[in-house]
């Protein structure tokens, strides 16, 4: 009786969409632990916690943010390639505003800078949304425009130079700590909580999934698909903007060309690892979170273990492949039953909905 209960629980757990991503994350951390036993050691240093795990959270914060926005965009069957550029623009805008001010450390100035940068990010998201939803341009190409031009805009703002700040208040956003933890973690938690609440506690999440799954049927059911798509792109812009602030304040400088370079790929990767399909529909915010953490843990592992840069990419390739193979029901079955059912392609994998 008890036995069956336990296997039932195991089965249910394994069916959960987070099971495999979490398993992978666990495996990565375990590997680190074996490799260097004090990987998890967290020390108190100068009033804040200090350790690898904290680093992973801190450096992973911008990626998580971008990936949260990306998740919603992908759920509407879209994609946003411009996030990297928005990251750069937001950072550049904030740093420019502050550097132009007299007293770089005045709270008012920092707040204005942050407000300006975020407003600009939302406007850029709106632009994407209008192109996709209003003009009906394919998302990948609509956002490609801003991806290309956006980097130019960022460099235009910084005049091609790196703007360096000396503003402890601004630095606090990305490098400061609150209650011994990096402040960026609180930002991520707040954004994640808002996103999760708004999508899961209101009907917005259902509308997004519905629009992503079947736009025409959604329109006929009375959903304002256009507004939803626009709102989602705006949110994605906002997330990228916040990430840009974190990144630039972490290093107290704005680098128009390099900030957020290739972030779009990492963010999409995180979303996909988290179990959301690029075909739109069901989305999993927690999955995305885990996906982003896997990516960041992987980088940290690579640095810690001392893998030479020449082979870094090869390692990354194999980890990515392993992650998705493990998540693939078909692959696990193939391992288990030596491919008994491989030739019934009509059988789509069981929905991983919970």
């Amino acid at each position: 009786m008890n036995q069956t209960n336990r296997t039932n629980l195991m089965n249910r757990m394994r069916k959960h969409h987070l099971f495999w991503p979490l398993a992978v994350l666990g495996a990565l951390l375990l590997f680190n632990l074996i490799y260097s036993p004090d990987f998890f050691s967290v020390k108190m240093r100068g009033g804040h916690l200090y350790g690898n795990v904290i680093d992973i959270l801190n450096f992973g914060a911008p990626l998580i943010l971008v990936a949260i926005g990306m998740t919603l965009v992908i759920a509407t069957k879209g994609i946003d390639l411009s996030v990297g550029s928005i990251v750069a623009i937001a950072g550049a805008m904030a740093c420019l505003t502050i550097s132009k001010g007299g007293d770089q450390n005045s709270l008012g100035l920092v707040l204005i800078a942050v407000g300006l940068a975020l407003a600009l990010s939302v406007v850029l998201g709106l632009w994407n949304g209008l192109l996709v939803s209003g003009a009906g341009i394919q998302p990948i190409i609509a956002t490609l425009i801003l991806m290309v031009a956006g980097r130019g805009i960022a460099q235009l703002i910084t005049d091609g130079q790196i703007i360096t700040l000396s503003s402890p208040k601004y630095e606090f956003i990305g490098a400061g700590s609150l209650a011994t933890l990096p402040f960026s973690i609180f930002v991520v938690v707040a954004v994640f909580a808002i996103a999760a609440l708004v999508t899961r506690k209101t009907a917005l999440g259902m509308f997004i999934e519905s629009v992503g799954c079947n736009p025409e049927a959604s329109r006929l059911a009375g959903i304002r698909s256009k507004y939803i798509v626009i709102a989602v792109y705006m949110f994605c812009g906002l997330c990228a903007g916040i990430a840009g602030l974190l990144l630039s304040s972490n290093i107290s400088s704005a680098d128009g060309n390099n900030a957020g370079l290739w972030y779009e790929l990492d963010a999409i990767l995180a979303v996909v690892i988290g179990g959301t399909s690029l075909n739109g529909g069901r989305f999993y915010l927690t999955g995305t979170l885990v996906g982003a953490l896997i990516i960041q843990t992987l980088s940290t592992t690579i640095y810690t273990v001392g893998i030479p840069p020449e082979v870094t990419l090869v390692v990354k390739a194999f980890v990515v492949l392993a992650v998705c193979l493990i998540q693939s029901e078909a692959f696990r079955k193939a391992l288990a039953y030596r491919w008994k059912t491989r030739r019934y392609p009509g059988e789509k994998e069981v929905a991983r909905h919970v």
Partner: protein
Amino acid sequence: MTNDRTPMLQMKGIRKSFPGVRALKGVDFRLFPGEVHALMGENGAGKSTLIKALTGVYSVDEGTVHLDGSPIRIHSPQESQAAGISTVYQEVNLCPNLTVAENIFIGREPRKLGRIRWKEMNRAASALLADRMQLHIDVTRNLESYSVAVQQLVAIARALSISAKVLILDEPTSSLDRNEVQQLFAIMRKLKNEGLAILFVTHFLDQVYEISDRITILRNGEFVGEYMAAELPRIELVSRMIGKELHAFEEKARASSDRKAASDAPWIEAAGLGRKGAIEPFDLSISEGEVVGLAGLLGSGRTEVARLLFGADKADEGKLTFAAGGDGLRSPRHAISRGIAFCSENRKTEGIIDELTVRENIVLALQASRGWFRTISRKKQDEIADEYIKALNINPPNPEHLVKNLSGGNQQKVILARWLLTQPKLLILDEPTRGIDIGAKADIQKLVLSLSEQGMSVLFISSELEEVLRVCERIAVLRDRRIVKEIAGEDMNSHNVMQAIAGG
């Protein structure tokens, strides 16, 4: 006796489970050459699953299949086609982005040295559709530009053009009108006489008795029995299907005395409403509590009328006015806010949201009209879902089931539930009984009547003339994308309507 011959196809003890559902629990099935064999059962009984298990779309958990006396194991539709089984699946399964001709011939294109001969293919496709289906359409246009009915005909044409030993037709007639069905039957008879074994699924009892020689009944994934059609009375068939004794199953028609003249002031009134290339300007008004039917041949423009009245397409001329004041419709959303609901004929692309659950699909329209912020609480959603699952007998009765995993008929019920939930003033039903089993069909018709008694107006579109006659108080007849006649009261009989349709 056919029984002495070896069956063309024999399935024994077929079992198939999906996560959470046991769809087939040991089904036996035989199909002889030169016969039409009807597979009967309620929605969700497992008919389509049996067919898919046979053609290699699904793997079977248990059971054997013999084709022509020898055991076979089919792993994919491709193999089944190669083995001589040609299939029309329940949902139209063609590629909307390819031309009609390609959809018929893809995989078997006429070639010369590996080069596809388009001209020859188009000619062959045109000829095939014209000769066999009396369908004269431009085969070089993409399939998506045609209505579901045409798509269905194309799918059938494709299956027929594959010379095979076994032909499987899963509800091929659900969106066809009487003429088309007769044409199809003529072809089926011819093929049967040529020795083909035909498996036929439908929910129309008349059609079953008209065409089939033998009947196999499934109930709840279980094999009930195999009968000669001539030896099984209708009432018997129905009670075996639903597993209950049944007396007067034939639905009560609306007594002609019930029909009130449409004298009330119209609730909605279209004047000269039209859209270029889709429907000529028409006048139509519907009063509160009135059930108006649209009759016409395929492509006569019934769907277009419905879409204009729902704001799904924008009218480019004419006026739409409401008794409650205001005119015109900007969007479906606007229409819903005015109390209109539209149940599309095309449930796969315009109806269900297939990745969502039954519960979510049901509450979707209501939630949309309330906006994203005023949520329906989860508890309330569960209650609603349970209520409608029970009321419409949706099977399996699990609100958390993904809609895409429901059987076709049950998906249709889910969409119906979605619209009933919004408590509309005008309910537009475009082929609402498509793919619905006989019991449920009667339920739906009764439902329409009781709704109208409660004051709901209904616009009822169906390819089954009897059904239209049964539930409607007034019928607008369409021909060639134009409303040609309105028939009401005493004149409403099948003869008059047919005459109007034919243009007499």
